[in-house]
């Protein structure tokens, strides 16, 4: 059984002007089980990680990350975005089992 995908969060800056390059910060709760550990009985604990993160803005992919077991538990991901207009981000985290967590967040460009 894969771990639940947990709660995704994203922080979008406010007071953004057109042309600003902003930093989007995201976090999701997830154990990122490496597949390298053993339980008390000596059995390998199966790998269960978030394998990919994708960020779309108004439906168009703008950034993606492929994660391996070396990314820490509760993955933190920060990336830049050139804010030319207001719109909506959609973030998708996907685990080894193909399950996804999604989060939408609005960007306001003043």
């Amino acid at each position, binding site marked *: 059984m894969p771990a639940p995908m947990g709660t995704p969060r994203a922080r979008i800056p406010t007071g953004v002007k057109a042309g600003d390059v902003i930093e989007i910060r995201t976090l999701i709760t997830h154990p990122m089980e490496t597949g*390298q550990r053993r339980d008390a009985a000596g059995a390998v604990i199966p790998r269960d990680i978030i394998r990919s993160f994708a960020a779309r803005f108004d439906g*168009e992919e703008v*950034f993606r*990350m492929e994660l*391996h077991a070396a990314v*820490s538990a509760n993955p933190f991901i920060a*990336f*830049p975005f*050139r804010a030319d207009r207001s719109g909506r981000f959609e973030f998708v985290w996907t685990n080894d089992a193909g399950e996804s967590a999604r989060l939408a967040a609005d960007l306001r460009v003043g």
Partner: protein
Amino acid sequence: MIALTAATAMLSVLPARAEEALRPRTRAAVQGIVGDRTVREGGITLRLPAIAENGNSVPLAISVDSPMTESDHVTAVHVLADANPLAEVATFRFTPACGRAEASTRIRLGETQDLVAIAELSDGSVRLARQEVKVTIGGCGG
């Protein structure tokens, strides 16, 4: 075609200093990303603490000098850990919409080792950075 200057000319695909003492597995992973392209050092920064107290959560930031236009941008940055159980750490894939080629995350490091970052650019060039991190308590055990 990538023009060779005095600074970038080399016998091997990898700059000698960058290749020095990397484990064969890591060298193979680098080679798999780079292929037959020429690697340059410089223009890419790998920011990590010099000493990581806790290998379970080590802040990592990468940045590449690039105008991030349609015709000239960074497409990907790959991060490898020389002495972890698996060399692959993460790949960041950028588009011109990013405006800058930089990203950060937190990673696990099992022991003191070198990290390698490889940037792929839209013109086919490849840049490499290498940085040592001393790890006090390893983050891959269990």
